[in-house]
């Protein structure tokens, strides 16, 4: 590997010719002409079929959008293929959605069929679609997710794999619009929730269940003990000293921490602050399923997702228990909810006691909130309930 300098950086004079603080490219330079011309002057839209949108402008112009799923993790080879498609059909423009879908836009209806055909014809050698069309209206759109075992130091599960498994399982819901309302599934591989999944119709969340292992020999070298102590939301960590035998056989007393294990809620915040407190464990780690949250203000107010399954084990590579639970949740919702009812609106209307019955989920003590003041407001202060 020969190092090839860019010519823009001289380590001896790092400030020489340096350009900083220039921000992102200006978005308007990247807008397709029909979008640029009609910006702020759109009249209405229609979903012509799953994954295909038409937006009509005051000027009479129309833009047709084909939405495709993506695994979010894209190779530059595939991005180049996306560019080839966009060059061929869309005058060299393309966009991505907040939920990692790819959108190809054309300015007239007669360009639509060729584009759709082109997109659906492309498959990976392993058999999966490269650009499945769908993700609109009262259906399932792409699952937003985090890095997992691909790239992160704190995950309790893998993100890309669990998402692949669930999207394979529910693929027909991505390609159709037959649910009572839109369904937003999100995935985060630990409680840090880079993906902020806590207000999703269904959230898949990686979770630890064993307190940290303490690497006494190294802790004081790798961590600031006061920061590790302060990191614990339940005050389970305290500074201490302990006698150890080092890897080289030396007996010595070291500064370290002690953990009151029964007070640990496995949030992993201490590990974020201190690499000498790893939590990850094959049997301990797995998934929590939360359900009934939403973000939109439509009809009902935004709300948090609630824990409905306290633990699903990690079962790589295809997480069969997860896939089964997800199918059951979505099928039960599809069967019982009324038109326009989001997942959480449905659960609230029928009552959570009925929800657990219909979804055939076991209710255990893990599902009763005991974390600080908000817990009280989730208990039942009424004689109104269903048998």
């Amino acid at each position, binding site marked *: *590997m020969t190092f*090839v300098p*860019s010519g823009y950086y001289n*380590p001896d004079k*790092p400030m020489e010719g*340096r350009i*900083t*603080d*220039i921000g*992102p490219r*200006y*978005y308007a330079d990247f807008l397709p002409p029909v979008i640029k011309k009609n910006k*702020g002057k759109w009249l209405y839209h*229609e979903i*012509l079929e*799953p994954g295909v949108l038409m937006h009509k402008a005051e000027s009479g112009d129309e833009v047709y*959008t084909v939405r495709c799923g993506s695994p*979010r*993790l894209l*190779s*530059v*080879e595939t991005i*180049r293929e*996306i560019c080839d498609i*966009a060059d061929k059909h869309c005058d*060299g*423009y*393309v*966009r*991505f959605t*907040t939920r990692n879908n790819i959108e190809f836009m054309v300015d007239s209806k007669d360009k639509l069929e060729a584009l759709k055909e082109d997109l659906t014809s492309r498959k*990976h050698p*392993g058999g*999966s*679609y490269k650009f499945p069309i769908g993700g609109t*209206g*009262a259906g399932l759109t792409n699952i*937003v997710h985090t890095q997992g075992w691909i*790239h992160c130091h704190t*995950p309790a599960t893998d993100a*890309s794999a669990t998402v*692949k498994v669930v999207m*394979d399982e529910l693929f027909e819901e991505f390609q159709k*619009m037959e649910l009572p309302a*839109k369904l937003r599934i999100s995935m985060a591989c630990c*409680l*840090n*929730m*880079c993906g902020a*999944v*806590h207000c999703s119709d269904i959230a898949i969340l990686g979770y630890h269940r064993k307190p940290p292992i303490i690497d006494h020999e190294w802790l004081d070298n790798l961590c600031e003990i006061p*920061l590790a102590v302060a*990191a614990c939301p339940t005050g389970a960590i305290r500074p201490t000293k302990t006698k150890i035998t080092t890897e080289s056989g030396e007996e010595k007393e070291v500064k370290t921490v002690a953990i009151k294990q029964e007070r640990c809620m496995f*949030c992993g915040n201490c590990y974020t602050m201190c690499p000498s407190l790893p939590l*990850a464990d*094959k049997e301990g780690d797995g998934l929590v399923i939360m359900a009934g949250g939403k973000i939109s203000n439509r009809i009902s107010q935004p709300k*948090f997702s609630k824990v409905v399954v306290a633990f699903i084990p990690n079962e*790589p590579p*295809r997480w069969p228990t997860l896939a089964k639970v997800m199918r059951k949740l979505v099928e039960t919702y599809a069967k019982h909810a009324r038109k326009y009812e989001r997942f959480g609106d449905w659960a609230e209307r029928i009552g959570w006691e009925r929800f657990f019955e219909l979804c055939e989920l076991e209710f255990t003590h893990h599902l009763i909130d005991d974390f*600080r003041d908000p817990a009280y407001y989730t208990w039942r202060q009424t004689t109104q309930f269903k048998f």
Partner: protein
Amino acid sequence: MPKHETPMVDQLESGPWPSFVSEIKRQSEARHQKAKEMEEAGKPYQIPVDVCDDLLGVLEMSFKDGTTHWKHGGIVGVFGYGGGVIGRYCDQPEMFPGVAHFHTMRVNQPAGKYYTTEYLRQICDLWDFRGSGLTNMHGSTGDIVLLGTRTEQLEEIFGTLTHEMDQDLGGSGSNLRTPACCLGESRCEFACYDTQELCYQLTMEYQDELHRPAFPYKFKFKFDGCPNGCVASIARSDMSFIGTWRDEIRIDQEAVAAYIGGELKPNAGAHASRDWGPFDIQKEVIDLCPSQCMRLEDGKLIIDNKECVRCMHCINTMPRALRIGNDRGLSILVGAKAPILDGAQMGSLLVPFIKAEPPYDEIKEIIENIWDWWMEEGKNRERLGELIKRQGFQKLLEVTGIKPVPQHVQEPRHNPYIFWKEEEVPGGWQRDIKEFRKLHQR
């Protein structure tokens, strides 16, 4: 022959959904194929050719032992910035030297995520040459995520981005994270303000805060054009800017009649794959209105706009008949966050309505007042929402100079434990015990 046997990982190539494993394999194959060509073009791969193979190997190992093999980041970055690069090292570098360093770079995406293919191809060429060739389009916060390079490449990539592509990095760590918005007015009739422009202008205004960590913890701005909230700002941004209006929903009564008569497809066709029966405006719109502010009179839809809470349901359901009002602006909600540390929080309404017009001075003033308070009072790793909980919503109103209004609460307080201020009570708090004793024996 693949470098590592990955029988478990390979099982994720089947099934209809686009396979991320196939993506990694595709890049691996291309790298091996093009290595010679790149060499001859004077652009030899700057990180190991088998980076993708080793990534698959690491993943297979994680599948076997159920744990991650990535270590804490350590401090890597580009000179003068405290964010934009996430350092990442493999904990089995001898087995997987190709990913011994596997740092991520966050590249600040254009607002609304529209691209020209010319720009994307530039990114691809750069990342092929100096990185793994793997990306996330996009990261959770919104950035283009370039996944996996070595420390010595960081400055070269940054130099190329800034000099050749007029492109900067995004945020990470305890700084302003890369702001993100919905596509807004560019292609949506519901957008109540220009989300892309506000997102861009604030990103430019606060470049220093974005690149140089000076905050107690991360801080996120997100911009939703309407209460439908497609970028989820209300759930995940310390300051959430959500478009709204304060006048009347525009009604086209002819189109209302066409929806009632079945000539127009309700919900813009969003429920089309299932037979829900004919559209019933009473049941599907009027009865579902959360503030019950609509009625039908002689076939005409009447909306009592003063009582409307702008939930968007009627507009979503009949987009050709109903349109957002003309007096548009945005609401600001503050303090949303995911559970770490003190539990999840939804954004709380701070500014019910403010106009969103350049140069956005009023909005900037609110932002800066909040930052001054948070930087002064916030503890290490305390998000804004947690500070508001610790010091009270009243304190937030005080530092922003915003007058309390009933819109700030769902309902008034449940307890009379009011922290009266001395100046609010006639005569103040300084009293003489002797005077008291003249009337009350000990």
